[in-house]
């Protein structure tokens, strides 16, 4: 640790590029960061820092950052800078009123990019409830959904992984998305744990595994069902836990007799032998941690992971279910706002992509009010709300709250410059259930405001000040007051204050929720610490179609794998990482490519149900023959790939012949 560079001060804070929450030291001279390093005393990062944690300063320092609010008549026009924030917020409030008059409150969507911070997200939820729209989208909403809110998180911190005997990673490429968390997996392996990785791609994480299982795309949750079936059949489950802690244990058990191992093998694309071997390994080594990727949360049967870890008795330190990106507790930020009946729709929760598509289609068909306005933070209209981005030209109002002139910016009518995470004091909810206080490195650049400031300002223009009371002496958002309030809104953090969290973070430790320590699963108790001592387990369910029918029009599976270093659009502000991964690459298996006459590096077309994209063919055996993988630009599960000059029908015929 240490730097050779000259500096005036060192700021110790928490990196907010992903959810791991590594300690970061910023060496600052004359309001410029001259060096960034991991904090060796920090319990999560232990002095290590990944490429994202180093590279963020390029975007932060970028001269093209948006620094003044601006407005224009149409997305084709030129932006006119607004005088100041109050004038811009007045204009936004007027525009929103017009949209409401014309199309009703449910025509408003709010997209919360994690880049905008937790205060933007929670502020958006409150504003949306007051406004009367159910559409607040944020990518971290679902991962821990099956776990009852009054129960402690499913497993311990990632530092506990080193006590596991088996680490089973399902559709989670930790090495690429959370490199510092991967260091704990490597450490566990060094200590003798078996690493089992199941994924539809041969990922960086799989390259370090003892057992690698290439499964069908979107079949990860069914692997969980198969494992549980095998453990039940080999009497390797905790019968006492099942009998005392599961509601309706008999019918739940019965559901597993409706599926055969062979059918689950078919669904997952594995052989029965492979499954048997995995079953034997897990039965023999009891302390298992299952680490699941966020994608699984949007697929059916996601509840199987909670059920599996509970039934198998994986509840000791070093055992359990660890859904990635699930460190945030359930926080009820709407308790004090009266719900307008009929405004909160019952299809509020679920896959935000499916939901946005659904809402959009219903709006177009006239069943629901059409979506006509978006408050879009970060680059959400190009990433998790890409489906709305494609429809943006037909909308009345797109307001962008962001730091960079990216794709979302280019679709917008109004722009509000956002402060970067290094410019705001923030309470971080990290993997590990850790609650940490991250002090800002600098004051915000002139003209840039936080998400909290944005919502306070907007709420004031609708007379909702009482619901956004966290205002400091300077008239801006009082972040400590806001986060103190936020901690109180969750039963598992209610005992904490920002002051406590700050002092613990400063002493290089982490506070984990639940702060009262009462709702912890106890290895020796067959009863769950929920209200009735029980949980609702996931049934095995026979699949709707025993043999998933190949889609004629779109014969190949699609995986949209995360771009570690952000996509091209955002990556433009990070030249250091942009050069490392080409996000225009369409990964395609060499055998599939050969059939279609596609060569490495060739420009090709990928057709999907929601649209097409062009990309560069990257021939690699990281993907299986039956699928392709892209980093961005498409949604959905099935695609067709073809040479640019090949008619779609010809490509379909070739692939059909190949599969029959």
């Amino acid at each position: 640790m240490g730097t050779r560079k000259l500096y005036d001060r060192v700021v110790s804070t928490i990196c907010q590029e992903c959810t791991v929450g590594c300690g970061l030291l910023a060496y600052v001279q004359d309001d410029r960061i001259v060096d960034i390093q991991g904090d060796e005393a920090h319990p999560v990062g232990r002095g290590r820092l990944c490429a994202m944690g180093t590279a963020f300063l390029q975007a932060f320092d970028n001269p093209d950052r948006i620094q003044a609010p601006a407005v224009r008549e149409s997305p084709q026009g030129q932006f006119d800078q607004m005088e100041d924030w109050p004038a811009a917020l007045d204009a936004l409030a007027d525009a929103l009123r017009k949209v409401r008059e014309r199309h009703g409150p449910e025509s408003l969507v709010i997209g919360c990019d994690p880049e905008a911070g937790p205060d933007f997200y929670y502020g958006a939820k409150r504003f949306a409830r007051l406004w009367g729209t159910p559409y607040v989208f944020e990518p971290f909403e679902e991962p821990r959904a099956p776990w009852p809110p009054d129960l402690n998180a499913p497993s311990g911190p990632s530092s506990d992984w080193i006590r596991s005997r088996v680490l089973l990673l399902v559709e989670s490429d930790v090495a690429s998305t959370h490199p510092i968390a991967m260091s704990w997996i490597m450490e566990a392996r060094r200590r003798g744990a078996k690493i089992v990785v199941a994924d539809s791609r041969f990922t960086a994480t799989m390259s370090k595994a003892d057992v690698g299982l290439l499964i069908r795309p979107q079949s990860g949750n069914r692997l969980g069902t198969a494992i549980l079936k095998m453990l039940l059949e080999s009497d390797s489950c905790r019968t006492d836990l099942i009998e005392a802690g599961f509601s309706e244990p008999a019918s739940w058990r019965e559901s597993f007799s409706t599926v055969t191992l062979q059918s689950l093998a078919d669904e997952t694309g594995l052989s029965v032998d492979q499954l048997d071997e995995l079953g034997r390994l897990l039965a023999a080594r009891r302390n298992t941690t299952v680490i699941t990727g966020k994608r699984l949360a949007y697929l059916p049967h996601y509840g199987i992971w909670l059920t599996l870890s509970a039934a198998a008795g994986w509840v000791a330190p070093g055992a359990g279910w660890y859904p990635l990106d699930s460190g945030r507790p359930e926080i009820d930020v709407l308790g004090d706002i009266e719900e307008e009946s009929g405004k909160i729709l019952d299809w509020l929760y679920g896959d935000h992509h499916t939901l946005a598509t659904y809402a959009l289609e219903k709006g177009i068909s006239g069943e629901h009010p059409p979506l006509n306005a978006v408050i879009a933070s970060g680059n959400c209209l190009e990433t998790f709300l890409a489906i709305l981005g494609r429809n943006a030209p037909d909308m009345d109002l797109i307001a962008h709250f962001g730091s960079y002139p990216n794709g979302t910016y280019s679709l917008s009518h109004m722009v509000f410059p956002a402060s970067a995470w290094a410019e705001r004091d923030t309470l971080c909810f990290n993997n590990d259930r850790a609650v940490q206080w991250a002090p800002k490195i600098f004051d915000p650049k002139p003209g840039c405001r936080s998400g909290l400031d944005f919502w306070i300002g907007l709420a004031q223009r609708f007379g909702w000040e009482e619901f956004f009371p966290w205002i400091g002496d300077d008239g801006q958002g009082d972040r400590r007051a806001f986060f103190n309030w936020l901690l109180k809104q969750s039963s598992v953090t209610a005992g904490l204050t920002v002051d406590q969290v700050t002092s613990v973070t400063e002493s290089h430790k982490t506070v984990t929720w639940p702060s009262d320590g009462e709702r912890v699963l106890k290895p020796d108790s067959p009863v769950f610490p929920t209200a009735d001592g029980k949980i609702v387990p996931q049934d095995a369910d026979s699949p709707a179609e025993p043999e998933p029918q190949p889609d004629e029009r779109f014969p190949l599976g699609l995986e949209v794998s995360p771009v570690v270093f952000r996509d091209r659009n955002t990556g433009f502000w990070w030249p250091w990482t942009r050069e490392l991964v080409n996000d225009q690459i369409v990964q395609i298996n060499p055998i599939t490519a050969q059939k279609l006459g596609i060569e490495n590096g060739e420009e090709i077309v990928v057709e999907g149900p929601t649209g097409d994209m062009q990309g560069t063919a990257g021939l690699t055996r990281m993907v299986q023959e039956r699928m392709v993988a892209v980093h961005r630009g498409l949604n959905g599960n099935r695609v067709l790939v073809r040479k640019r000059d090949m008619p779609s029908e010809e490509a379909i015929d070739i692939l059909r012949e190949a599969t029959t």
Partner: protein
Amino acid sequence: MNAVKKKVTKKNVLLADSSLCIGCFSCQVACKLEHDLPQGPRTVKIIRLGPVERNGNLVMDYLHQTCLHCEEPACVYACPTGAMQKRDDGIVFSDPDLCIGCQTCAVACPYGVPQLNTANGKIAKCDGCRERVDRGLWPSCALKCPTGALTYGTRESVVQDRRHRAATIIAQSFSKP
């Protein structure tokens, strides 16, 4: 010419353990920050090998590539201005004050290590973080490596460290049922 062939007495080395590398590029970006490099020159390179089939299984490795700080560095012999130098501790580096960006060293190097930094017209290559190691600090790439795939120290200490790790793994295999 013989002046280049120095007897290196206290050489420190950077050990790259491919079995631990996860291809996260942390080292590459760490180097960019340390040396204020623009997009383009890659003084540390992680090259993905595979996946290829080996004994019926797919395998994939990451290869770490940087300057080898040769015993007899061709780049130093080739440099017309004396910018490229070899220190007593074995570090081969290019002095930007003397470098004219002619890239003769890039042609001379059998491994293609020296590259042009287009931002300042000078050669960019691993300088062993000489200014850091002179202060007793680890090179930036090794410091930030998430998994400890890169370690730094004397030849004896890094080898000893690997031996220790391997011995621990063997010992653990005996200690567990």
